[in-house]
């Protein structure tokens, strides 16, 4: 009963269009005040203690690091490197788009920013080279989503915060699926380019490749710092995030010189704005999951689902459908913060590995960013390509189909995500 009231209230408040954080908070306050004996004063304390964890602080640090490198100059270097590597294959510039998106998204940590940065530089070049606009738009829109799977990923930190899963293991688990997904998007690109005889770039010399690699290397080294630092036990994930933020600052200002020192306050302010928004959602989501635990909802749901004889296969299917539906209306971090605490207990009861479950959810979020009505990537892509959402949806479908196939692969083949962290001894 209380489950229905809580979710009904939350849904009703959310659909009025108020910020998700506010609707979460108001649901909790209303329910606690009217239906329970819990002193509402305890809520005030929760609002502080909700984010009083050092692990959560990785989020602002990663955002800062990403913002320093979210710059056209970095995008241009990545594109140059990517096209020097794969440009001479079928669909050259398209393949380069996939690779450049994967690299830039991993470093910048933002999917929409990747679509804009890579898209606005690469798309005109593709059109000039003779690719249809639709083809380019499809490649960039879907590849831009790769960022939340390839570490460092803020969405993964969100998941680990709300389920107490190791961030390091999650990051490692994202590496192979990220590469496979980039491979699948690339294969789709290659196949369509081959079929429709799209142009190829001239092969470039090894010296040029090396030069392009040296240019983009500084930005890519950020991934090495984070992953290497965490894996070698040099830093905790939060410390690694702080180190990467300082590294990104040095690279952007002193090595690449894309930013001057006078731009730094602006970057700081933007990062603070973004982080505060996410932290505010986290605070209220912590309140919400406090309410759920208090009402024993996750456990009841787990018991009910297990009582219905729902097996692992059926449960994962339900999870995928649920998350894809939620992806129609909300952005990734809110979905994870609301859904993960509910679904997680069931998953562990069914013997699903927490890390595998996290990767599965993240892949779901990626798909959600690329399909209407609220795929953020679609909307920013529509902004730079001047194509309508409907036209863009048509343009995107071959890659979206590849993503859905990949989602199935990730869902039902845990080894894909678990092999690397297991081999490295990060999970048992």
């Amino acid at each position, binding site marked *: 009963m209380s489950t229905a009231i809580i979710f009904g209230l939350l849904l009703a408040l959310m659909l009025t269009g108020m910020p998700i954080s506010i609707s979460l908070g108001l649901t909790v306050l209303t329910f606690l005040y009217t239906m329970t004996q819990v002193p509402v004063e305890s809520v005030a304390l929760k609002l502080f203690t909700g984010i*009083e964890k050092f692990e959560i602080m990785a989020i602002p640090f990663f955002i800062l690091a990403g913002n320093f490198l979210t710059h056209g100059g970095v995008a241009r270097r990545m594109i140059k490197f990517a096209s020097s590597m794969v440009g001479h294959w079928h669909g050259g510039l398209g393949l380069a788009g996939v690779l450049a998106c994967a690299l830039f998204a991993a470093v910048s940590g933002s999917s929409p920013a990747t679509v804009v940065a890579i898209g606005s530089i690469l798309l005109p070049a593709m059109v000039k080279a003779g690719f249809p606009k639709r083809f380019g738009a499809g490649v960039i829109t879907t590849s831009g989503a790769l960022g939340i799977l390839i570490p460092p990923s803020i969405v993964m930190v969100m998941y680990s915060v709300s389920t107490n899963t190791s961030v390091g293991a999650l990051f490692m688990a994202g590496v192979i699926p990220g590469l496979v997904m980039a491979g699948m998007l690339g294969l789709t690109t290659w196949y369509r380019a081959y079929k429709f005889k799209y142009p190829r770039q001239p092969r470039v010399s090894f010296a040029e490749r090396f030069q392009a690699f040296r240019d983009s290397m500084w930005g890519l080294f950020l991934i090495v710092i984070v992953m290497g630092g965490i894996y070698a036990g040099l830093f905790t994930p939060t410390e690694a995030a*702080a180190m990467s933020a300082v590294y990104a600052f040095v690279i952007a200002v002193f090595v690449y010189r894309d930013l001057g020192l006078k731009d730094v306050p602006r970057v700081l302010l933007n990062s603070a704005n973004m982080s505060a928004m996410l932290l505010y959602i986290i605070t209220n989501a912590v309140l919400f999951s406090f309410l759920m635990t208090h009402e024993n909802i996750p456990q009841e749901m787990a018991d009910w689902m297990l009582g219905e004889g729902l097996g692992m296969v059926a449960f994962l299917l339900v999870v995928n459908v649920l998350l894809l539906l939620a992806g129609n209306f909300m952005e990734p971090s809110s979905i994870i913060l609301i859904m993960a605490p509910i679904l997680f207990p069931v998953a562990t009861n069914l013997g699903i590995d927490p890390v595998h479950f996290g990767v599965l959810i993240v892949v779901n979020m990626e798909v959600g960013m690329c399909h209407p009505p609220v795929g953020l990537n679609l909307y920013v892509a529509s902004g730079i390509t001047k194509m309508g959402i409907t036209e863009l949806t048509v343009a995107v479908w071959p890659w979206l189909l590849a993503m859905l196939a990949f989602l199935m692969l990730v869902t039902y083949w845990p080894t894909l995500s678990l092999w690397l962290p297991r081999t490295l001894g990060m999970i048992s």
Partner: protein
Amino acid sequence: MLMRILDRLEEIFISFLMGAATLITFVAVVHRYLASSNLIPITSVQDWLLQFDLSWAQELTIIMFVWMAKFGAAYGVRTGIHVGVDVLINRLEDKKRAVFIIFGLLAGAFFTGIVGTLGAAFVWENGAHYAWLQWLGQDPGDIPEGPTTPDMEMPTWIVYSAVPLGSYLMCFRFLQVAWNFLRSGELPHHDHGHVAGIEEEAPPVAGEEDRIYRMEDDLHPHKLREPPFDDADGKGEGK
């Protein structure tokens, strides 16, 4: 004028917290390695480094980020970064949509107002009352002194006062945005796809550079005064 000062202060404050927290964590990590490992073979330098105890760095980082989160959330209201599910209300006609927008903003003000008050009461009972009486030179009696933080031994009520201060500021920002919306029909809008440094590649065409703000993107409340877009025909050109 006063508003402008408040705006600037808010911006400087959260930018400072962001930068300072990063530097502190960075310095603490570097210090840990330089002081404990054999990276520097000179013992005197190591001894000198060991004098500094940076164990409080983690606690300070957390406190700074919590303050940044509370005040940044208020700043976020002003920049329109707090997004909601507005797929439904964006399909309504302008008048009805405006009602929902105002409702949402007032709900935000209501929630942050309550939280601010709860937080203020909490802070008052956990040491602020005691400190206030002591500052006035009166005998606090059996009013609790309140706990202190583990590493820096700072009274927690000072740390926790981020909740009432930030929430009240946020409440004020919600009311301010609501007032501006009523007056001009404009809502702040955050552009998630902004990337610096690509402008020189394609110089903005007049009337095109702000296109993203005018898109019917179902993600952000848009301006009321513009003709509603019809994207169903798939043109997406805005008209």
